[in-house]
């Protein structure tokens, strides 16, 4: 009895990614929007907020990332693949996708190294942070399950 996900579950996932991105970008707008308005399409309105066109571009990114998550982090498309390989594929896809959007929609000038450095730094910090969190959570859960299994075996062994 596998719990089936509906289209609304994926829409919710899209909205979580989109909402969080918009929140962060609006905070950046308030912080340095005015100083970055001349070099970045994202901050074209300065501290006033994110342009509608950019919002739709980020919505597209959110939809594509959710799609990639469906491909790489469920076993509906790829049946057998290690978690490590899935993570590498997802990371590669996300970097290529966002880099493509940066170049296509001029989110920042592609010939400037500083924004690229910031992009990879932010992306790297978020990725390493979330990976560390997931790995720690998984290890803790595995340890708890192993201990519980050992206790259950001991208890049931005593009954017999």
């Amino acid at each position: 009895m596998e719990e089936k996900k509906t289209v609304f579950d994926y829409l919710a996932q899209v909205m979580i990614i989109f909402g969080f991105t918009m929140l962060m970008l609006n905070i950046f707008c308030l912080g340095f929007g005015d100083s970055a308005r001349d070099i970045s399409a994202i901050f074209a309105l300065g501290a006033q907020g994110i342009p509608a066109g950019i919002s739709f571009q980020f919505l597209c990114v959110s939809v594509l990332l959710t799609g990639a998550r469906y491909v790489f982090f469920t076993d509906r498309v790829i049946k057998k693949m290690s978690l490590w390989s899935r993570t590498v594929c997802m990371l590669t896809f996300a970097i290529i996708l966002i880099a493509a959007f940066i170049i296509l929609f001029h989110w920042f000038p592609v010939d400037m190294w500083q924004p690229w450095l910031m992009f990879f730094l932010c992306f790297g910090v978020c990725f390493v942070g979330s990976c560390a969190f997931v790995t720690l959570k998984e290890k803790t859960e595995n340890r708890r399950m192993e201990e519980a299994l050992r206790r259950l075996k001991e208890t049931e062994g005593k009954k017999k």
Partner: protein
Amino acid sequence: MKVEIIVDDKADDLHISVTCRQLTPEIEKLLENLRMMNHQLTARKHEETYLLDIAEVIYIESIDRKCFVYTADEVYETDFRLYELERQLEEFGFLRISKSFLIHLQKVQSLKADINRKIRITMSNGEQIIASRQYADELKKRLGVM
């Protein structure tokens, strides 16, 4: 059919006697259920019937409505349906972990969290079985970690 029950406080052990003209599939099923009380599971292999000790069973798999019983070295077939085995073997430490698998918890070697809140279970014979998300929650409840 006549059922006779004799309550005798001097009886050493439970004694069940079945008298019939011939062994019908229904009587076979009744006997199989009785054997299970005796920690034995009736299973077939190459047209021969075996009485397996339930403690030897590692897991049971259902394929195309047929149930296969896996021990350390052999695979047997049983006439029971998986839902029947699930109900009858629960008290012997068996647990349903997906639509097609029933595992013996005593024979679990290790448990590992997998993608989508599933659990990868390695059995004592090295076989790996995935507990689907819903059944994974049941497994966690049984283990007392949820």
